[in-house]
């Protein structure tokens, strides 16, 4: 027995261990979730269309072909492959408008997420680290913002700031802010009680190091999930603001604005309404699937025990 024991130690001493990188561990968990992978594939397609829209040889999204207005998609008898998904009421190519619209929607979504993520993290950290006065002030302000319906608040902000795509982003970012602040504060106050924070303080960490290097990385998992999910709601809100006539102004192609403009032709030409609507639906669904996959992979409570 003793010999076997020393033998094992000798083996162990010469052995080297390789640990899987965090990214690989994440990917093996994420790729096991089929819905998330499908969602990711769809979003990559949308992203590709958005990024390379000018290079795909499409028509100009705002060019009007007056003699070809309200043409159905190509697989109909009246349709032609010149306009694969048909044209709208003034003869603009729908496929091209959807691709260029994706640029606006994704960009606005991304900017809105970043614009609420960054101040949200800062405010949440402040609220978590100074719960007595600063934290209470921040949280009550967030409560007031949450007491107003999201779209109403966005419309109110838009009417103060004026129309335009930048203001739409700001409005959406402000509306999403309380969610981030509450999430970060909750994670921070949970993490603050852990021994490793005390250990880090003992090792001489100052306040900023403690906030951003010690605690914040441990709050990232729920934050990534929340950011993904609020990306999809930002796209929806851009579309909603566009539909209501705020936000992106015609003739710029944007999914919500397309939907609003096509409303009157719904009974004659289903495609002008359905295609932007389905695009919004599928994108939001895909992002939500990705978000669910991220949550399943990143949330330690749901993690399979190795």
């Amino acid at each position, binding site marked *: 027995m003793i010999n076997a024991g020393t033998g094992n*130690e000798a083996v*162990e*001493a*010469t*052995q*080297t*261990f*390789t*640990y899987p990188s*965090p990214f690989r561990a994440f990917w093996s968990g994420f790729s096991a979730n089929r819905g998330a992978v499908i969602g990711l594939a769809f979003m990559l397609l949308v992203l590709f269309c958005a990024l390379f829209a000018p290079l795909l040889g499409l028509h100009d999204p705002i060019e009007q072909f007056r003699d070809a207005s309200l043409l159905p998609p190509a697989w109909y008898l009246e349709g032609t492959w010149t306009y694969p998904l048909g044209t709208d009421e003034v003869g603009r190519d729908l496929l091209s408008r959807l691709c260029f619209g994706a640029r606006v929607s994704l960009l606005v979504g991304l900017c809105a997420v970043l614009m609420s993520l960054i101040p949200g993290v800062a405010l949440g950290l402040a609220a978590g680290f100074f719960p007595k006065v600063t934290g209470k002030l921040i949280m009550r302000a967030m409560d007031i913002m949450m007491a107003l319906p999201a779209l109403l608040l966005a419309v109110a902000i838009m009417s103060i700031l004026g129309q335009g795509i930048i203001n739409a982003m700001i409005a959406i970012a402000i509306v999403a802010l309380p969610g981030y602040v509450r999430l970060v504060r909750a994670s921070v106050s949970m993490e603050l009680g*852990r*021994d*490793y924070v*005390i*250990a*880090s*303080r*003992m*090792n*001489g*960490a*100052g306040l900023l190091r403690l906030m951003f290097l*010690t605690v914040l*990385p*441990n709050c*990232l998992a729920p934050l990534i999930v929340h950011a993904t999910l609020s990306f999809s709601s930002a796209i929806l809100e851009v579309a909603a603001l566009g539909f209501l006539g705020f936000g992106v102004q015609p003739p710029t192609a944007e999914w919500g604005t397309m939907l609003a403009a096509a409303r009157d032709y719904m009974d004659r030409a289903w495609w002008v309404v359905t295609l932007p609507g389905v695009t919004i639906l599928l994108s939001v669904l895909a992002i939500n699937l990705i978000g669910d996959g991220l949550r399943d992979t990143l949330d330690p409570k749901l993690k399979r025990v190795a």
Partner: protein
Amino acid sequence: MSLLEIQNLSVSFGPEAQPFKAVDGLTLSVQQGEVTGIVGESGSGKSVTMMAIMGLLESQGRITADRLRFAGQDLLSMSARERRKITGKSMSMVFQDPMASLNPSYTVGYQIMEVLKVHLGLRGSALRARALALLELVEIPAAASRLQAYPHQLSGGMSQRVAIAIAIACNPTLLIADEPTTALDVTIQAQIMDLLVSLQKTQNMALVLITHDLAVVAEVAQHVTVMYAGQAVEMGKVPDMFRHPQHPYTQALLKAIPEHNKGEIRLSTLPGMVPGQYDRPTGCLVAPRCAYAADRCRQQRPELTLTDLGAVRCFYPISSLETP
């Protein structure tokens, strides 16, 4: 001169008018290169004392002391910034639960190197070499490949070794170990204790060992302080205190060790529990649980008095009880 001098240290929580004294008038000194044991039940103020010394209580607890000196420097008058330069470098601490005391977001190597960078200013290959040497010092097999491991990829014992490596990274003169083996299983407990004691000897550190395991203290410590409800009830040397406990509480703790109950049908235990914030008796704090408590014990609080064996906080220490 002692390395760490604590005189009349009190830590209180809660409202100013009705403070709850978690530590009450503790006096303790720790000598260079010695092992000091602090023993007591849960809630007797052992950990709070050490957190106060390390300056980790800032916001919640109010700390008062006549004297709090480390290596000749006054810790009380020091600014937080100056104090941060000492803690983690010259005085360091090992925590109870190794799984919780390492940051889950960073690799083991990063966490060791962070301390070395901040306190010793090491860079580049010297930094890596020192981190590796530390992991080897705490007897981690295949140390080089462990630098890339995240805490969740290591076992409890291995994590505690890493935590010890971080604590001794800057060659501290004082190491506080707050129940370093409580969260580990029995076979690993012995290994970690052996490691701590051998490191204490080779690095000539002072080690303050907070524990509720009297057997461990009897084996490794030179001095013991028994704490109860925030107060030191008995202080003395090893092995004298184990042979002649003066305080009834110490005696009861010793009697509750399973090895002292061989052949008995029932393990002798101490009934009741440490009084909390609202149920502290007016007299001696141990009185409700003491087998020898007299009327005087229930009305007055005894002071810590010096004896030839150390110090004891009791009106009727055991030696006087046995010779009526």
